[in-house]
């Protein structure tokens, strides 16, 4: 039985992307071609940025004696001919739900990501792995067409729905000619020119092999600030695994402070290299075990970042550069004939001020603030007009304090902390390379400004005082399990801001956890039924 089978298209999109418009275009085309068609959708609240889907069924030729087919209202897993997705993870979602069938389904998907809140909000890197989704798509689709739809849409100043329509037609998935689609877009009458441009660009991309290229295009080109030529010989004395990061690090630190500071950086790396027993020749590096290599590379990376910690001077310097204004112009797509005004949101607290003062002065200011309990209190919020004369002057004046940084309170404190960390690395590199590799990554928990930074420092100190001290305190070298515990503690510290995860991880490692921070119990006068006791559940 069942001669002609309906042709089914499942469209996965995000609310507000104009999936409805695309839906209408397809219907119009089918009607114009005299083909029976039906579409359904489940917008509801998903219209508000959530993932949603549209489902189309049509006959590729009329049934004859103008009989109407019976179309299904929802897609059946394994029985969809074309899945069209406006975003990579949404494509993955369709694969997950079994709509992509290697015997039947053409999967046409955008290669860009619109990250979900869960991915974005992590303190570390919570992003899903694009490669995994591409691989699953390639494995389960009869044909996988991956397109950088976002770029095509941006390039032609149109919406993604037009680009999706073009990709659908270009992939040869529709039983009517390109002209029909373009006529229907024209009849739509809104943003016709840009829609048509986006449509045909996507059409060609999907039609030619160009689409496949999108798969390769992953990650951003990284603007490596190369270190000056004269440093090459010095860097060459470092083990191979260190060199790349070291080169960037040197450049960064010259830019941050001066050549002398960069030399201090290289000397510190040198100390680590010697401790690891890896000689300067690449041959020597080969002999060094994999984890030693990893430890050295990671140490080079984090030492550079740590030594160039962000203080008010650094921030002011970075914010008052010409290159920065250029970057903003590019990012905000400011045309040449348009004017740009940039306002910065700054709110340095007493702590930040004390940090850049000469050590003794800073200490006095801080202890005074501590006595008055105003240390953690934020200063006044500044809206600094960075592109106005007085704004720029204010920033440059701060930036010009750079030479004084070496005598500042925070510089002193950071160098102490760095030395402590380096010493620990030196002690473990040769004896316990795996532990050293974990330890090299510990500074990753040092992040941000204000509260965030205090939190990071606390986590760092907490892990160092417990796990690191304990492991290095023993007579015999740290074991691989010590290394694992340290790694897990670092991940836990990056898992959530309250630091409870960290304490749990430490507890698993046999450290007695700290009680949660006290919160005031605020309760109001309740004349009618004043509670005799206050029970708080936490």
């Amino acid at each position, binding site marked *: 039985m069942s001669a002609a089978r309906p042709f089914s298209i499942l469209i996965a999109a995000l609310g507000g992307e104009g999936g409805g418009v695309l839906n209408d275009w397809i219907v119009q085309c089918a009607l114009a071609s005299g083909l029976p068609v039906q579409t359904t959708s489940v917008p509801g609240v998903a219209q508000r940025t*959530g993932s949603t889907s549209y489902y189309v069924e049509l006959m590729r030729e009329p049934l004859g004696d103008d009989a109407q087919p019976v179309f299904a209202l929802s897609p*059946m897993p394994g029985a969809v001919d074309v899945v069209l997705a406006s975003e990579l993870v949404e494509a993955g979602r369709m694969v997950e739900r079994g709509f992509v069938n290697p015997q039947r389904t053409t999967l046409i998907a955008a290669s860009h990501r619109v990250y979900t*809140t869960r991915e974005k909000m992590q303190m570390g890197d919570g992003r899903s792995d694009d490669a995994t989704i591409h691989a699953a798509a390639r494995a389960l689709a009869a044909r996988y067409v991956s397109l950088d739809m976002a770029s095509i849409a941006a390039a032609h100043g149109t919406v993604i729905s037009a680009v999706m329509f073009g990709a659908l037609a270009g992939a040869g998935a529709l039983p009517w000619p390109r002209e029909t689609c373009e006529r229907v877009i024209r009849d739509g009458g809104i943003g016709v020119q840009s829609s048509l441009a986006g449509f045909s660009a996507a059409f060609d991309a999907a039609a030619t092999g160009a689409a496949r290229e999108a798969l390769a295009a992953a990650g951003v080109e990284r603007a490596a600030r190369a270190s000056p030529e004269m440093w090459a010989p010095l860097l060459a004395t470092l083990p191979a695994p260190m060199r790349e990061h070291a080169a960037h690090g040197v450049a960064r630190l010259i830019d941050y402070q001066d050549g002398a500071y960069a030399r201090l950086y290289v000397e510190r790396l040198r100390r680590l290299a010697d401790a690891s027993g890896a000689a300067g020749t690449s041959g020597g590096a080969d002999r060094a075990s994999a984890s030693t290599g990893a430890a050295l590379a990671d140490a080079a990376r984090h030492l550079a970042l740590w030594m160039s910690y*962000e203080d008010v001077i650094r921030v002011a310097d970075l914010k008052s550069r010409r290159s920065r204004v250029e970057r903003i112009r590019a990012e*905000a797509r*400011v045309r040449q004939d348009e004017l740009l*005004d940039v306002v*910065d*949101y700054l709110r340095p607290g007493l702590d930040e001020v004390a940090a850049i003062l000469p050590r003794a002065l800073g200490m006095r200011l801080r202890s005074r603030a501590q006595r008055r309990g105003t240390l953690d209190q934020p200063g006044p919020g500044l809206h600094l007009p960075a592109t106005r004369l007085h704004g720029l002057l204010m920033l440059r004046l701060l930036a010009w304090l750079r030479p004084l940084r070496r005598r500042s309170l925070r510089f002193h404190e950071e160098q102490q902390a760095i030395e402590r960390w380096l010493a620990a690395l030196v002690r473990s590199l040769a004896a316990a390379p795996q532990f050293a590799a974990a330890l090299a990554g510990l500074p990753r928990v040092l992040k941000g400004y204000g509260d965030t930074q205090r939190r990071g420092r606390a986590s760092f100190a907490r892990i160092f005082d417990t796990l690191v001290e304990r492991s290095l305190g023993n007579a015999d070298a740290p074991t691989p399990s010590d290394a694992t515990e340290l790694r897990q503690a670092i991940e836990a510290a990056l898992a959530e801001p309250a630091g409870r995860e960290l304490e749990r991880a430490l507890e698993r490692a046999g450290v007695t956890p700290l009680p949660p921070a006290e*919160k005031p119990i605020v309760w109001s006068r309740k004349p009618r039924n004043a509670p005799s006791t206050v029970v708080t559940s936490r």
Partner: protein
Amino acid sequence: MERSFSEEIRSLALGAGETFHGEGILAVTKALLQSGVSYVGGYQGAPVSHLLDVMVQARETMDELGVHVEACANEASAAAMLGASIMYPVRGAVTWKSVVGTNVASDALSNLASPGVIGGAMIVVGEDYGEGASVIQERTHAFAMKSGLWLLDPRPNLPTIVRMVERGFELSEASSTPVILELRIRACHVRGSFVASDNVRPKISTRELQSEPAAFDYDRLAHPPATFDHERAKYELRMPAARRYIVDAGLNERFDGDLGELGIVVQGGLYNNLVRALQTLGLADARGRSRIPILNLNVVYPLVPEQLSEFCAGKRAVLILEEGQPEFIEQEISSILRRAAVATPLHGKDLLPMAGEYTAEVILSGLARYLQQHAPELPREAGERALREIGELRARAADLLGGQVPARPPGFCTGCPERPVFAALKLVEQDLGRLHVSADIGCHSFATFAPFSFGQSILGYGMSLASSAGVRNFSAKRPIAIMGDGGFWHNGLLSGVTSALLNQADGVLVIMKNGYTSATGTQETISTPSSESRRVAEGTSATGNETTIESTLKGLGVKWLRTVDNYRVDDVRKTLHEALTSSFDGLKVVIADGECQLERQRRLKPLRARALKEGRRVVRTRFGVDEDTCTGDHSCIRLSGCPTLTVKTPADPLKVDPVAHVTNDCVGCGLCGEVAHAAVLCPSFWRAEIVTHPTRWERLRARVRAALFRALQPA
């Protein structure tokens, strides 16, 4: 309103013989006009919002026909509207989202059902069930049964839906009983076509006025002793009349097939998915002709006993396809057959799941089981292979994807004025510890998702304050109730505020004053800013001068009342903190003021486009992050969750974690900056003001500045 229906309004005027193309729910709208309704009312909510929205926008067409359209304050007032058909021979229809709307309407519904109607009365409900549903999963069917209302569940194709609307009014009049027409989500949004007929002018209407009120007739009042006669009439007179009409008009459809020893009884709404399942088994063709006889119930209550016993008699076994729980239809059919001494075995919930949507896949597995038991000679391979494949596909996919597909629930739109309030609430929790938050229905319920994860309970539309009445008396910290202006006017004012005042409760209520019922498509409420003030406001918030909510609360005797500008996060934080800690004993109301960003953008976009075309000066604002000062901690995202505030791989090769990044969809609401300040996050946020077509003076000033900067600024 979020959407404009100019296109659809034209199709409402189509005449006999012309073809209507469009959504299922709009086909219903057209069918109402073809049925000569005098009045239409309802309360918006997916999936039926469009029915009312299009009529509200089609005021002229309606006036010209003499049809009165009313956007009711809630479902109760919509249901009460049908009271007009109790004493007057006028047809009326109302609509809402079910089951929640039916709950709200049920008092009026009972009092309507008891006396019954002389003019056709129809309730069009969106059965918000299964994928895409946003409410508790219950059946409207129960209301039809307990009140004695007839329930239509038409086959989801437009000609059938339209026919059921038109016949539904006749059924209502033939049996003096209001009729419910239920449409599932996808049936409301299905796009198809039907051949239209002319709209019918109602005999009694806004243009054909009734000179005299109806005579007094105590027996038509839902009041004892009349109610005892009503109860009898329901089952002795009205139901038999209804059954006669259902048979005479052929409302239920019987599709015969060559496998006469088998049979399927199906709710009309499930028919298409049943056919797809049969097609997969090779038991039906593309145009739906099935080899197994099907009794398709477009009327699921009441059932016609003769029809069912006649269909079932002499079959090996009959399968009943009934979505949701409990299995009312299956139970009724089994007692019908028992009474008629028809011994045919019945199957339904024993072969299909009790809960959840009946997709083609679910129906297919039930069918396969049914055939295995009662027609093992029939080929089932095709269907069983399909089911096996689906299982294998899902398993392989899960294996290949390895949990790399994060969920993507709906969230606040870019620039939404409600997001800053929850950012502020998060900051308040940093000072006061965790709070009990009573959530409500509306966009603000998106705060139950990451990054906010607020809300210990949701008890219904406008119920948040009422639902904290118990909690606040055993909580050391004051609980806080969140409510939208939509919920406030729908129910919250009475159920929440007056009840709290009556009991001199010591509670905190936050009202989101965004000017519309935004979640359902920004329909207007009594406190929606006037069109004039919206015109003046252009891209800025227009709700500032609209003080209906404030004056209402003052009038009720609310003493502690503050209005805050949502986008001033620090002010919101301070105000919430004060409300939660103040020694004032009594209801404390914080009105969070900020117009729905969707409406603002809808006004702004055309204005801006025109200004740019005419070469006038235009300023656009957007925010951004300096990636070289961003350390990739993402606190800003944990406090905002804005779609345009996202992350990207840093250009700096030394940095490990992704840095924050603002996309070009930013509407410059200013939240990032405010949060960066209020939470003392980091110095990375900047605001860019971009001037297109600057004035001569601006250009000169810019040139001078550039010259000075070259001297001061390093590369």
